[in-house]
């Protein structure tokens, strides 16, 4: 494989990413399943990079999951989006930052639709005014939170205490990167690196010392499929998509998977568990599975944050093998404890996926 070929493509798709004064909107999935990631994002931006990032408590879901399960009409989602823009306008911001990839896709789709079908923008303004009395300006810049971490990846590397290197062997960690479908598949120019060879996570991995792995099913959807997961009868589709990816990446022996979408790390984490229960098969080494991280979690590790502050304890696939590889210390006793150290019990160990109880 010739890396120069990919680099040429990456240079073609340089997108504008705002560098300060962000209006932040949260992700439903991440708030539920990866709260530590959103906390870490704000911590990095505010404490490490001294950026101004503002969250209006009155902001809500963009309705993206409702939109993509088709229970919410397009006009409704457009108006939900408009309301978020109105809150941004009211607070005096122009740079819109989303935590969720489905949101990012929806905001991009709505803005493009308004551009190509101006009557829909007019109608949305009417609806918003009628329902809430609000008015909005369109953002100057819409970036995903991973774009921003990408933009400041070198600063993070400079402040970093750890590199993505296997301490035992001295070799860079092998990292599979997985991009959320709604990041760039619909509008390739809105993704760093375009749709075929996205660079947003590759840039982070490379600057933090790791080695990126390409594999045949890299672009394959993780299988969320919205209704394909949310309704039990359809879940076979969802798990099959993830399994396709695991089977394809296995020969390359990845040390971890890095994702930028909220849903993807959840599915890539949980479906490894489900596959192990259903078929007795585990991926990765020693029956532990392949750890799946969000980019904030990885940035936090590089910066030396406490893994249990980052929320790594709420992953089903154990994260400790990765921490040991990098040489990041952690206190196993504190893993499942509350904020004041209170004992919250422990989750039951899965029957196949090995619960990491001892350092090697």
């Amino acid at each position, binding site marked *: 494989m*010739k890396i120069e*070929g*990919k680099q040429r*493509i990456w240079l073609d798709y340089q997108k504008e990413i705002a560098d300060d004064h962000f209006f932040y909107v949260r992700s439903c999935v991440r708030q539920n399943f990866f709260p530590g990631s959103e906390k870490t994002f704000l911590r990095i931006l505010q404490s490490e990079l001294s950026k101004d990032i503002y969250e209006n408590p009155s902001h809500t879901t963009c309705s993206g999951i409702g939109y993509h399960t088709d229970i919410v009409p397009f006009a409704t989602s457009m108006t939900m989006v408009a309301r978020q823009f109105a809150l941004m306008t009211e607070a005096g911001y122009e740079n819109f930052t989303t935590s969720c990839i489905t949101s990012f896709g929806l905001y991009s789709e709505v803005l493009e639709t308004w551009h190509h079908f101006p009557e829909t923008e007019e109608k949305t303004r009417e609806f918003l005014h009628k329902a809430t009395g609000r008015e909005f300006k369109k953002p100057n810049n819409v970036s995903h939170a991973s774009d921003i971490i990408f933009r400041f990846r070198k600063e993070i590397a400079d402040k970093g205490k750890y590199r993505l290197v296997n301490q035992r062997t001295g070799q860079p960690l092998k990292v599979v990167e997985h991009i959320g479908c709604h990041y760039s598949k619909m509008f390739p120019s809105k993704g760093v690196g375009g749709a075929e060879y996205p660079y947003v996570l590759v840039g982070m991995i490379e600057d933090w010392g790791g080695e990126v792995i390409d*594999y*045949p*099913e890299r672009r394959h959807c993780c299988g969320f499929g919205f209704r394909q997961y949310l309704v039990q009868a359809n879940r076979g589709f969802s798990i099959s998509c993830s399994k396709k990816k695991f089977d394809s990446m296995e*020969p390359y022996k990845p040390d971890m998977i890095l994702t930028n979408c909220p849903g993807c790390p959840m599915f890539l984490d949980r479906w490894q568990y489900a596959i192990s229960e259903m078929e007795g098969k585990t991926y990765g080494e020693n029956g532990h599975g392949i750890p799946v991280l969000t980019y904030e979690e990885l940035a936090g590790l590089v910066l030396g944050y406490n893994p249990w502050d980052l929320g790594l304890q709420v992953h089903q696939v154990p994260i400790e093998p990765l921490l040991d590889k990098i040489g990041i210390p952690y206190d196993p006793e504190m893993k499942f404890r509350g904020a004041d150290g209170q004992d919250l019990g422990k989750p039951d160990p899965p029957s196949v996926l090995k619960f990491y109880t001892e350092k090697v």
Partner: protein
Amino acid sequence: MSKSAIIIGGGAAGMETASQLARLGIEVDLIEKQSRLGGHLNSWDRLFPNRRDSKEVFEYLEQDMNDGISLHLNAEIETILKAGDRFTLSLRDGKELHSDALVIATGYEVFDARKKEEYGYGIYDNVITSVELEEFFRNNKQKNLFEGIKSKRVGIVHCVGSRDEKAGNLYCSKLCCVTGVKQAIEIKELMPDAEIFCFYMDLRMFDRHFEEMYYEAQEKWGIQFIRGRLSEASENPDHTLLLKLEDTLTGLPLKMKVDLLILLVGFIPSPETRRLAAMLGLKEGDDRFLCPADEHTITNSTTIPGVFLAGTVKGPASIASTITDARSTALQVATYLK
């Protein structure tokens, strides 16, 4: 005073237009930016439909040229000016040429396959273009190419950069289909036990003997034709390629492994053509090729008196029809200059 014409472009069209005009007693300056004549004719090994050696065609065109032609090789054009009925060309080396007529025969380029990112050209080792394959044949380098092939499975992809909004070209490049069928046969000749697949959308076998070649490819050589455009090529750990497409005739998605992938890249208007056209104020079509004065009846002249077109500046064309077109242009120029 004898009339003169400047012909820009020393490929098949330029060479033949020059020969014909010189024979009619017109002073000809032939300008070519490379160090030798022939243009793309120098890139091909054997020509469809009868697979004759392209060198024969080049030699014919070369021998047809005579002393009446002033040849300027390695010549790059700085500016072109029209004043009244006269043209003045300034070359980069400082030379100035004058004429009463101008022929644009600057030809085409092939689509840059890197733009079709999902095919992995320039990234994966075993993805090459049809042009590179011809080069291998011409320079006898096919042994190196086919040496690494284990299971001897070759995929040929039609419509690369053509009929493709995302590649920026809606048009059909016309000659790639027959090129693909020809190359399939040529590869099979070298590797009789290879499995060769052509992934096509429509088979444009429009000219004489083309359809028969398709029949021969199937019946005599066992080439397999799958109707489906390649959607994606990825690399396996062993550097073979994993292809994803749909067999639209059975209506089922198809995943298959090949050792070598050949991309049939289409025509694009050459940047030099467009630069000169802009200087002269020539009309470009939506497809960015140049427009003659009338699509049906005046196909060798432009709307600018004294400026003529020959060959693939007007769009994809075969070598045979380019040579014929060049002679037609020469006649129009001669008539204009009388």
